[in-house]
């Protein structure tokens, strides 16, 4: 099955591990990703509060770039995912705005008909379209013994969630169970990571990050798995500063769910972007997964 692919800017640099692991896992599942040609920034979280029309037009340009042969677009970054979905939704429910957006697009010789492209998150694609049997079938190195805290963040599950509970989502929990991981009950799974608050007011942002780390550590999770570059960045890059601020000593590796999924599918860590995280995941993986013989059948 072929999907259009919108990596977004985070996946080019700070979340490169997400990009490579998404591509690697997709390949394992025979998901063909066709990257949009000449895609642009989604505007992130800020642009929409400045000028809705410009922000929508910026996002809609990416929707308009989707190959006419394809009708589904995968966006792994949570902010990109939400912005793309929001714009499509806005154009469908507010035809006047839709027309204005198309006027903007026309300047570049483009056009987008609301509802044409189904914007999806890779988690939904794997969970809903493949399902338990197909995923279990792919597992060659079950993640037995690896305790993971699934962290959904806010943007994928709200407000336009596809069939998961917005308050207490479970899709990543289930997916990780299918590949043999020990999924801890993580009550903070849909709480805020602080977003860009790190740039505005550190004490507030650090407290939000501390809660997430503390809750995962309390549940004795070996690592937190993310599906959003912002979440991963805040929890990983600010971990030592949070420790300094609160006099704590958290050492929780923060990686993307696709990275451990790839491990379960038998891919080598270096093909999955491991090593790019700041709090290293390797010691945990070695301790927990070394006993599992590589290549052992699922």
């Amino acid at each position, binding site marked *: 099955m072929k999907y259009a692919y919108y990596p977004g800017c985070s996946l080019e640099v700070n979340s490169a591990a997400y990009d490579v692991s998404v591509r690697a896992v997709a390949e394992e599942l025979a998901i063909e990703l066709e990257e949009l040609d000449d895609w642009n920034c989604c505007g992130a979280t800020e642009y929409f509060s400045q000028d809705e029309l410009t922000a929508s037009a910026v996002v809609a340009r990416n929707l308009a770039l989707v190959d006419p042969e394809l009708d589904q677009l995968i966006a792994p970054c949570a902010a990109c995912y939400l912005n793309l979905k929001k714009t499509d939704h806005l154009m469908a429910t507010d035809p006047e705005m839709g027309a204005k957006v198309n006027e903007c697009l026309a300047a570049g010789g483009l056009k987008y008909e609301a509802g044409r492209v189904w914007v999806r998150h890779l988690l939904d694609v794997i969970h809903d379209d493949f399902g338990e049997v197909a995923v279990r079938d792919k597992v060659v190195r079950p993640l037995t013994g690896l305790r993971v805290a699934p962290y959904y963040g806010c943007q994928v599950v709200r407000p336009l969630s596809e069939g998961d509970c917005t*308050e207490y989502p*479970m899709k990543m929990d289930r997916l990780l169970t299918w590949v043999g991981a020990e999924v801890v009950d993580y*009550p*903070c799974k849909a709480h805020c990571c602080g977003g860009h608050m790190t740039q505005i007011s550190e004490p507030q942002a650090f407290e939000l990050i501390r809660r997430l780390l*503390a809750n995962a550590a309390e549940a004795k999770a070996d690592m937190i798995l993310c599906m959003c570059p912002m979440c991963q960045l805040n929890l990983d890059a600010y971990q030592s500063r949070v420790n300094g601020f609160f006099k704590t000593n958290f050492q929780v590796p923060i990686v993307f769910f696709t990275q451990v999924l790839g491990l379960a599918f038998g891919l080598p860590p270096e093909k999955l972007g491991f090593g790019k995280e700041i709090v290293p995941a390797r010691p945990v993986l070695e301790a927990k997964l070394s006993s599992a013989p590589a290549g052992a059948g699922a």
Partner: protein
Amino acid sequence: MAEKLGIYVCHCGSNIAGMVDVEEVARWAGKQIADVAVARDYKFMCSSLGQQMIEEDIRKLGLTRVVVAACSPHLHEKTFRRACANAKLNPYLCQLTNIREHCSWVSTDREAATAKAKALVYAAAERVKWQQPLEPMPVKVNPRTLVVGGGIAGLQATLELADAGYEVYLVERSPSIGGHMAQFDKTFPTLDCSACILTPKMSEVGQHERVRMLTYSELEEVSGSVGHFRVKIRKKARYVDENLCTGCGICVEKCPRKVIDHEFEAGLGYRKAIYTPFPQAVPRIPVIDTQACIYFERGKCRACEKVCPTNAIAFDQKDETIEIDVGNIILATGWKMFDCRRLPQYGYGRLPNVYTNLEFERLCNAAGPTGGKIVLRDRKTEPRSVAIIHCVGSRDVKTNEYCSAVCCMAALKFGHLVLEKTKAKVYSFYIDMRTNQKGYEEFYQRLLEEGMIFVRGKVAEVTDAARLPSEHGQLIVQVEDTLLGKQRRIPVDMVILMGAMEPQADAKELGLKCGISCSMAGWYTERHPKLDPVATMTDGVFVAGVCQGPKDIPASVAQGAAAAARVQALITKGTVMIEPVVASINEEACSGCRICNNLCPFNAIEYDEDKGVSRVITAMCKGCGTCVAACPAGVISGAHFSNQQILAEIQGALWDANPNGNGLGGDGHASSAGDTQPSLVAG
């Protein structure tokens, strides 16, 4: 066929006139439709003046057909038929067409609505010309009544009827009557013990000479109509002979298999594989749960059989179908508990000390699993603080939009019980306090004085993720206090979720069997929400209690009694007139193929072996028309729905599609009366 038609277009105040140009419709009908002797519009056609106008026209102008364009036939068909009958015109020569619900209320374009109203009037006028005079048929009312559901509403209805001297069949799905009320400890606002007021009624029903209780039984099929229903009831196998069992209970005592009781004890207690749901159960006869019984699992055990002093255990018992005849049916099928797992942010099923309201009822019940001690799941620790969360699954667009009506008062009752029995602090997290019945507001005031803490706000989540060392090991309620305008985190030991009342899972299915419908939320639809709250659109079928919508015990009892009174009125009268809108078979032409026999959804067609023909049992026919359409020889006709009538109606309705109006049933000669008769309103 020179009929003289009267056309009456109603304004319904502004309900119709606000969107439809009713004067124009009347003027147009008088000119355009053939054979119209008079066409008028009037402010309120259903008023006595409006009816008098129709009656006078029938008498003075000699009208032979009447068309009223007004509201739904559900509301006023009877009214206008009666007016015609008063003026000696057969009521079935009157046709009501609905230009309110079907036209004005659902339109936004006045011109289009007016055109549609014209088409509807045209259709009714074309149809009414072909209508035949019919006479309703008197049917004797069987004085026996079926009550479905043995909760408090059903028990009340049963006792009212039985005490009045009439026989009642009471069907209950579970092994005992009593319903949810039997699970409760205290009842608000008077705090009298639920069992103390309920069990006398239960035993009265159990011993009443005019009540036949069918517990552990379900309604399977209903045929017939008001006065003479035939009902099939499936009596599930109890595996205990009801005639032999004395209810001594030794079988229950000796049964070696203990299972969690998810029904009566809401999962907090245990019962045996052979059990009566609770000690005061009526009847006292136990049932064997085949899912739990060792004998049914492995073919060995039969301990109960060995100890039974009267040999009442009957492992070979089978489900039984019983057919009974009744005149009326009262549905009092109650409600089911909202599954609190559907709101995972409140942690039910994940966090042990989160309870549902039904669990808490059992927890504080002196006859419950803890003997009435309010303790945490460890069965030892008394909570030091309890949070009660209102509206869980109610007043929420994501689950149920309706208010469950009883939870605010039940929450106050819980608060009182916790304060009375423990030293705990009690918090109520409410959206709005709804305490609007007799004595309820006073009870709220009482709890305010007793020190229950009220926080106005919808709870965001209940979590065990501590932020502060002081929160460790507790459940934290995160809430926006909308009176303070602040987010609050309140750590507690126990959380009680006031789960919503929901319609029974099979309410719709049972409704269909009885010919009644449900609201969008799934509650049974009453005939009129204000003026006829216990009757339904099907004559002879009544509803009482929560199955009609969330309500408390007093309201359920009132409805049970009201439904019984309605049934008594029919029984006392002795006969009911039933609609003559039925099918009939031309026996001369019937080939006896019997295709219609099995198709009839009401079992209203019998086969005469001697003559080799089928025959409609008029009293059971509902006039659905299935047989009419199916008869290969075309010899079944449906009164009031003949081919001519339907085709003429369609032709009339298509007026709009042919604006010149010429190819239609009539050429639309303007009748002189229509021309000269001024509209009453226009003067």
